[in-house]
């Protein structure tokens, strides 16, 4: 008799998803899926809008990473306009994207993941949350809050709003940086350094206690893809894409936004509204790959900033080749936060950072354009077609969560097979299955204002739908 375990909703994620685990007659895990159960429809309802509205429209996709959408969208529009934005605008956009990465990674690490990491996977769910972390490790609670505040404050200073900022427009920015704002940002950085240093120290102390989780949390050979600069350093905003294989071999390099759709395809599965991106020459699912912090650190040769460079060297010691356990996404996230703070400081020292020329203007010069950037969770690709009046006739977005979709599903199956024995499970076991998904920090939809609490209910169902076991978290 086959049975199904359902985890719905998966908690501590950005958005709403569920997990199902199918058991066979012997109580062994036969299959497992991570389902994204919501539809957004942005690609369709942008049709007919003027292309220059796209950045501000697309930013509404997400309340956590709107800046990445702003930037990828603006770059797609600039391809349609055939313009190159001024140097200062490019630097300021880079800073805005890094500030977003810092606040988003802080949310992921401190608010969503740290309850498992600091209190334990088996801790009472009543305390396994941000309040429990604050009670047990108040210094880390304050550090997380500080990093969120600093990232958001920089976004607000630059774009006037901490969520869904404006400022980034096709051709550049609406206004230059003032010296007053520059000084305010610089004044925040010492606290940012100390906060991320505290988190890195704490993480390294406890990471060794998660040997089993490291072993089975989406730990398998895979391909990885990220942006990389000409100097082979990490780059969140510019550069070109590199795809590497499981041994670190370069499969595809120098992928511009224009070339993206030639080599990246999207498959559809009937259990999820999120698409599954794959590298076309290898087909689906063999061409699936991972993106995000783990992929970025696996691909780059250098961080380009001194403190993060040391951390990268340490990170790369975790494996002889690419680091394959998704548990290490957490570690990579912390290294990237440190890089982000260093890079913001470096950008602010640019002698041209206060230049007034931050925008190029043009009309429709091409009927198609694509743009890409790194969101906190990984590569983000926007691709638009317009008519001669500049109205959008077609849009396609390839988001990080879709590119990690196959790996998340494989990871859920791997963990379920390891932890669910003889059809039996505990809340702690199922939390580990959820925690696999959390390592990727998927962004399903975080801009929706929800009422009430999200309950967690896991039911073990017989083939005829009868509930034979149940764990509920109200």
């Amino acid at each position, binding site marked *: 008799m086959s049975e199904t375990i359902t985890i719905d909703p998966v908690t501590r994620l950005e958005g709403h998803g569920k997990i199902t685990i199918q058991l066979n007659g012997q109580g062994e895990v036969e299959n497992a899926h991570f389902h994204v159960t919501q539809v957004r429809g942005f690609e369709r309802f942008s049709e007919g809008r003027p292309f220059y509205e796209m950045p501000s429209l697309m930013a509404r996709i997400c309340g956590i990473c709107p800046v990445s959408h702003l930037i990828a969208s603006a770059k797609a529009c600039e391809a349609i306009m055939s313009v190159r934005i001024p140097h200062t605008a490019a630097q300021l956009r880079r800073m805005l994207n890094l500030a977003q990465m810092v606040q988003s990674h802080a*949310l992921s690490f401190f608010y969503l993941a740290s309850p498992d990491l600091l209190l334990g996977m088996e801790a009472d769910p*009543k305390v396994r949350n*941000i309040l429990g972390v604050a009670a047990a490790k108040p210094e880390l*609670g304050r550090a997380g809050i500080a990093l969120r505040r600093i990232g*958001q404050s920089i976004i607000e200073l630059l774009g006037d709003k901490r969520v869904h900022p404006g400022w980034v427009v096709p051709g550049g920015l609406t206004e230059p940086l003032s010296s007053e704002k520059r000084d305010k940002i610089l004044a925040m950085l010492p606290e940012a350094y100390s906060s991320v240093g505290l988190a890195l120290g704490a993480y390294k102390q406890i990471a060794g206690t998660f040997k089993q989780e490291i072993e089975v949390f989406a730990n398998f050979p895979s391909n990885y893809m990220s942006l990389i600069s000409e100097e082979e350093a990490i780059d969140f905003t510019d550069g070109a894409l590199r795809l590497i294989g499981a041994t670190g071999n370069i499969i595809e390099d120098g992928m511009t936004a224009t070339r993206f759709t030639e080599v990246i395809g999207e498959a559809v599965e009937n259990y999820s509204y999120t698409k599954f991106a794959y590298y076309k020459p290898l087909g689906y699912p063999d061409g699936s790959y991972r993106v995000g912090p783990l992929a970025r650190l696996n691909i780059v040769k250098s961080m380009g900033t001194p403190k993060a460079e040391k951390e990268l060297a340490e990170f790369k010691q975790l494996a002889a080749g690419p680091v394959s356990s998704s548990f290490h996404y957490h570690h990579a996230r912390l290294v990237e936060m440190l890089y982000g703070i260093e890079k913001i400081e470096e950008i602010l020292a640019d002698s041209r950072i206060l230049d007034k020329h931050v925008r190029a203007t043009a009309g429709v010069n091409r009927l198609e354009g694509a743009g890409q950037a790194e969101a906190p969770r990984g590569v983000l690709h926007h691709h638009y077609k317009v008519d001669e009046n500049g109205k959008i006739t077609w849009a396609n977005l390839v988001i990080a969560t879709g590119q990690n979709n196959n790996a998340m599903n494989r990871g859920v199956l791997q963990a379920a097979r390891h932890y669910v024995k003889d059809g039996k499970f505990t809340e702690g076991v199922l939390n580990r299955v959820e925690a696999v998904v959390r390592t990727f920090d998927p962004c399903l939809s975080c801009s929706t*204002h929800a009422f009430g609490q*999200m309950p967690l209910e896991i039911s073990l169902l017989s083939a005829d739908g009868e509930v034979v076991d149940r764990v509920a*978290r109200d």
Partner: protein
Amino acid sequence: MAITARCLVLACGNSLRSDDGVGPKLAAWAEERFRGEPEVRVIARQQWTPELAEEIATADSVLFVDASVKPPPGRVRLIPVTSRVDSSAQPSHDLTPNQLLGLTRTLYGSIKSHAMLLTVGVSSTELGETFSAPVTAALPRARGILEKSVLRFLGR
């Protein structure tokens, strides 16, 4: 760092979800009413996130303002908030007033002299930028209670 103010008005809601926007609407009114008064700070958010604990820590008193689906539409309620955390609620990255106060006390050792929650019962949270008739009718009373509460917190 957070800006110091004696009284913090902390509203929550989404102005694109009909009656759910009553919190931000009242916050906008409070901003205008107490303009030029540095002792009063007004913040409106779509969610009450943990980092607001820093802001609460710097204030003597806090007035939370929100829509509520529990009371009848249009009913205005003012209730005290304690930092006692309901352990059955599982916080993620948005918190209740109790949880926020608890977090503020845990992280910053800060206890408020006054902490109240002002709610307006809602009838619709569908997409839209207008209020239902009961919420529209309740706005003058909600504004009055908000004003009176802030003045009381300030000892006036």
